[in-house]
């Protein structure tokens, strides 16, 4: 059975695309066949982070509009087996996507035997974001530990409950997961950031994992590889935990407490 997962947030710049890239790569590393679709038509970020922006010939919009076949547009990832990317168009806008068109692409992917279809949603709550979540079975809501991001996530959770295909058809509701990114425990201690409890208290959905704020995330994005593949970084471990928990494993949450820097570390840095 294919599972359609939307990665969404409401607010922009919280790490949706980073999370989409890492989770899809992580699932592919586990041996699942994964397709990741960039719904952010007009901006196109996913292909950059996945390092395949120079290999895009046909994109998602071409497929939706029938100008290319799905197989022509799916880009096979070079590092990870079983991982395929459907890039967004840079030259079109979000109106180029239609509900029927998107539905057909997702049905075709299901037929092709993909285990997971990850929809990387654009920011906002308008058409693009609604299309990305419409066909979802599960949702991963990405939030930063600050008030406006949490509020926007609350809003998008309301939309998930009201405007998805499952909601309209009266089926089982979308399963909701939370990923808290850019978490910095020492700034939480000083009260500059919301704590995990503050966020889960308000959103009241299952926490899939906390990704620590880390330079490696930016470095990985800039070098065009999902951060989950950078085995030296905390963020990669955190994302791997997220993938394990997503697949049903019980794992204790990490990276929640500020590391006490010893004298040695204080003098010599990391």
């Amino acid at each position: 059975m294919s599972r359609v997962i939307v990665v969404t947030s409401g607010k922009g710049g919280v790490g949706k695309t980073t999370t989409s890239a890492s989770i899809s790569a992580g699932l592919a590393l586990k041996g699942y066949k994964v397709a990741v679709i960039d719904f952010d038509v007009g901006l196109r970020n996913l292909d950059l982070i996945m390092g395949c922006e120079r290999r895009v010939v046909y994109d998602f919009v071409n497929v939706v509009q029938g100008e290319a076949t799905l197989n022509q547009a799916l880009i096979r990832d070079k590092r990870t087996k079983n991982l395929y990317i459907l890039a967004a168009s840079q030259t079109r806008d979000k109106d180029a996507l239609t509900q029927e068109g998107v539905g057909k692409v997702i049905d075709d992917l299901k037929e092709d035997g993909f285990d997971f279809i990850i929809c990387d949603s654009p920011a906002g709550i308008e058409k693009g974001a609604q299309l990305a979540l419409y066909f979802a079975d599960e949702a991963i809501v990405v939030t930063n530990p600050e008030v406006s991001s949490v509020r926007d996530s609350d809003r998008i959770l309301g939309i998930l409950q009201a405007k998805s295909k499952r909601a309209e058809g009266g089926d089982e509701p979308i399963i909701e997961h939370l990923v808290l990114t850019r978490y910095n425990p020492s700034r939480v201690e000083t009260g500059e950031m919301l704590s995990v409890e503050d966020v889960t208290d308000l959103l009241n959905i299952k926490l899939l994992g906390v990704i620590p704020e880390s330079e490696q995330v930016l470095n990985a994005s800039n070098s065009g590889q999902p951060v989950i593949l950078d085995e030296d970084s905390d963020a990669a471990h955190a994302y791997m935990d997220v993938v394990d928990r997503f697949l049903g494993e019980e794992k204790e949450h990490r990276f929640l407490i500020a590391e006490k820097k010893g004298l040695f570390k204080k003098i010599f840095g990391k």
Partner: protein
Amino acid sequence: MSKIVDLKGSILSLTVLNLFSDQIDETKKAIAAKIEQAPDFFVGIPIVLEPQITLKDPTFLALLVEYLTQLQMIPIGIRTEDEAIKEQAEYAGLAIFPREKLKNRPKRTKNEPEEGLKTALMVKNSVRSGQQIYAKDRDLIVMGSINPGAEVVADGHVHVFGKVMGKVFAGSSGDTQAKIFAKQLNPELVCIAGMYQLSEDIDESFKNGFIEISLNDGKLVFNPGLLD
């Protein structure tokens, strides 16, 4: 005192004669055949005609009425929307009945209870930012929290088993007896029958633990001691 006359609407059951042919001879023969099966049954019964085709022959109705009368039936009217047939019917002395319309019954939405039953509207989860819930003519029970940016409105009382962080309106159609109950209150706004108070005007001591809010003398009264 007894009335001389009285006009009343009534629903009667009448026999309808459906017409599928505009040939008078053919039609007469078919009617005769029908009557032969049970001659007594048709004597004196009122008949309503209902043509299922357009009647091109302008004398058709007059001839048919005459024939039915001969057979001791009483044609009283015709059911049609066709203007030409209506005109013929006038000459033949028939009343005109409008065709039955299929009424589209408004579909009941999911949350509404059976008619007549007006228990509280129950919301099982939290009400999230941007969502609005209205319990018309009844109470509202929210099992979760009312998150910031969410709004709940009830014509009756409002009960919240989570935290209230959004806006709450009770007695929204003017019931001053309506109350708000909440497990914990830190709202953007509370309002009963039009009297409202913003978060900053609510004493901090009311913002931890169970609270009951009612309206007394045009003022909102906060009572934290109900469960003590």
